[in-house]
């Protein structure tokens, strides 16, 4: 089973990197972009077969290491 974990900064947290990317896009003449926030993507192969077990493993991984829940939130997607 494959899953994708997305870790993003909570909306209340300032993201200077996202702001810099936003500015760079603007200076490149890419129009129509309101704002940019940068995050992380983890593609994970799981050794478990059932989805509820996989969900609990990934939650554990996120809480223990992948996200710092002081400033980040996470989301799990299962890939086909």
């Amino acid at each position, binding site marked *: 089973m494959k899953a994708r974990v997305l870790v993003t900064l909570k909306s209340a947290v*300032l993201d*200077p*990197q996202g702001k*810099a990317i936003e500015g760079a896009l603007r200076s490149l003449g890419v129009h129509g972009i309101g704002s940019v926030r940068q995050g992380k993507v983890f593609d994970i192969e799981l050794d478990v077969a059932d989805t509820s077990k996989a969900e609990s493993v990934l939650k554990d991984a996120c809480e223990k*290491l*992948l996200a*710092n829940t*002081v*400033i980040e939130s996470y989301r799990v997607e299962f890939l086909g």
Partner: protein
Amino acid sequence: MKAAVIVFPGSNREGDVARALELVSGSRPTLVWHADTALPAGTDLVVLPGGFSYGDYLRCGAIAARATIMEAVRAHAARGGLVLGICNGFQILCESGLLPGVLVRNARLRFICREARLRVERIDTPYTRKYAKGSIVRFPVAHGEGNYTADAETLKRLEGEGRVVFRYVTTSGQRDDEQVLNGAANSIAGIVSEKLNVLGLMPHPENHVDPLIGPTDGRALFESLAGVLERA
């Protein structure tokens, strides 16, 4: 004093801090590898040095905070033992939950390597008793992620309990939260734990201990520790 300096892959200030400790106490700290499971018997001070543990992968200090030795460091802190985290060490303390908050990318995105001015906000800690209250000291900073961030409630608690020990100030000695060099909330440069035994700070006191290379404002921090631990 029986100090243990923890070495992670990518630590690079362990020699500087060991030298500063030896200079003031006369005893040489033990360097302890991150994969060890126990601190040397009788350890009374643990130092997490600066550097770039694990190449700052994932988040600064995140992987080091989960190293084997950190269980022993956590137990040492829980017993009231002294733990000092400098720069990457401060990031590791936050990631390990020994101090609240987190250090994120500097507000203006630049790595800052220069001398900073700090105000000593509190002198009744084991780390600052040799300073005068409110004195302005000069410590070097060298970091890309030193922007202290915490939620409003945590900041309020830290301020209410007087746990901000070092604060960045301008060259004229004033606090200016708008112009603070790295964007840190409330100009926070260093905080202590509730029991005052764990200190984390971004600047490097260990680099200002020898008149040969400049100011010696950092020396009093190590002398404070030596004084406390000699009497123990």
